[in-house]
């Protein structure tokens, strides 16, 4: 009886450590948002969002269309600056640094925070140039050999190298949809970002290409802070460790993915993920 009790506590400890790893609960926050509000002209699109996004993990944003999840994603690399009617208030920091600080160089910020879009959008250039473009303009390579290395490493990390290594001079737009999306991910990785934002990266892909991108996300998460917006609940459940649910411009619930999809706290979350929204 005594032995059983000891064994159980050991199992519980291991289990707690394992769960903490999976849920990312023990990890320090990479991106911290406090009281973020977004207005498009008179429209109040996002209200008082507070969230800590851990490093080296995947956080998924889910919610119905128009709920504000993409708007919030675009705040993290200040993509919303490009919309003239858009106004952002509140505070967002990456590694403690305020990204809305007027002294901050937005171009540098966007190099640190890469983005992958819904539709693969390779430049109408060669595969090589697609990946080399970022490192070139940011001056990350001193010579051709270094640039070659960055291109190869990025394509390898994006699980595309094997498929394109013999045709680097071919146009990026000639690849299949899934390959184009992985090329876009390689392009994002090439400038060594800290954070990668993905806005529905698989919605234009077939199931096999989706599986490849999901595998890639799973591999990248050991080195990057990844934030993904997705309309597929199953995808959010598969790829993320933490999930945030947005509805009507507010962040309703944020927590370990496992909890959100088996036993969410808020009724609105429950209704949305089970397909009950009226």
């Amino acid at each position, binding site marked *: 009886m005594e032995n059983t009790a000891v064994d159980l506590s050991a199992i519980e400890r291991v289990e707690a450590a394992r769960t903490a790893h999976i849920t990312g609960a023990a990890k320090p926050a990479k991106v911290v948002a406090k009281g973020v509000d977004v207005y498009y002209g008179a429209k109040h699109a996002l209200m008082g969002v507070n969230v800590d996004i851990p490093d080296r993990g995947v956080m998924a944003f889910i919610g119905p269309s128009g709920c504000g999840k993409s708007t919030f994603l675009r705040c993290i690399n200040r993509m919303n600056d490009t919309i003239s009617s858009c106004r952002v208030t509140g505070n967002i920091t990456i590694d403690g640094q305020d990204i809305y600080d007027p002294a901050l160089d937005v171009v540098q910020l966007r190099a640190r925070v890469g983005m992958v879009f819904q539709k693969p959008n390779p430049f109408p250039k060669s595969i090589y140039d697609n990946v080399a473009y970022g490192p070139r303009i940011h001056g990350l390579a001193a010579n051709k050999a270094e640039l070659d290395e960055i291109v190869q490493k990025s394509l390898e990390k994006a699980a595309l190298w094997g498929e394109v290594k013999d045709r680097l001079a071919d146009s990026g737009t000639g690849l299949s949809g899934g390959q184009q999306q992985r090329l876009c991910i390689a392009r994002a990785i090439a400038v060594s970002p800290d954070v990668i934002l993905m806005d529905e990266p698989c919605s234009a892909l077939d199931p096999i290409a989706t599986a490849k991108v999901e595998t890639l996300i799973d591999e990248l998460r050991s080195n990057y802070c990844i934030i993904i917006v997705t309309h597929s*609940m*199953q995808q959010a*459940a598969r790829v993320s460790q933490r999930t945030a649910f947005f509805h009507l411009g507010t962040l309703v619930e944020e927590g370990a993915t496992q909890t959100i*999809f*088996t*036993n*969410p706290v808020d009724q609105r*979350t*429950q*209704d949305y*993920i*089970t*397909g*009950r*929204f*009226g």
Partner: protein
Amino acid sequence: MNEHIVKSYEEELKLLDRRIAQMGGCAEKLLIQALGALERRDPKLAESAVASDATIDQLERELQDQVITMIAKRQPMANDLRHIMTVLKIAGDLERIGDLSKNIAKRALAIAGESHPKPLMTGMRHMTEMVQSQLKDVLDSLAERDIDKALRVWRSDQEVDAMYNSLFRELLTYMMEDPRNIGLCTHFLFGAKNIERIGDHTTNIAENVHYLVLGVPITDDRPKGDKTASTLMSTPQS
């Protein structure tokens, strides 16, 4: 609770509830048949109990097929996922309850010619009635999603265990009194053990109802009453 946007999903969940309710009804009926067969040493009733068990097995297979199709088709989440998974587990418990009841009925055939000591049958009857009412309550708690009712069933299992302990001792006494009772008493002992096991499956169902409704397991320590594993009848020293 709001209804699903997809109507057919809603209907499938309702069908699942009807199926588990039907299975539960069959299991309740079977337990009553089994006790009747034992009490009256009625081979006809025993045979119909065996047939009822085949029905329960068939219902479980159908329910299982539906669950597998639903998981593939709907990819259920949150309360739907818990609903579907717990119903599947409860179906497993009901199937076991059916088997155990059938086994009691079969023993009725084996001891058909022997005379029953009346007090023994009273004990068996009392214990079975207790388990019957728990089974009924737990099935109600499932249908009504009533966790208080489920918790009451879960806590009352120790009374069944206590009954089983006392019946166990009584049977040992009969066997020591007259070795000719050993055959009959052994069948009774297995019968009583089966009823005690049915009580355990009933508490499993109560735990699943709790998880289905709240999404967390029951955390209390359940008082355990079965001490027969460590019971020995001391033989009189001469």
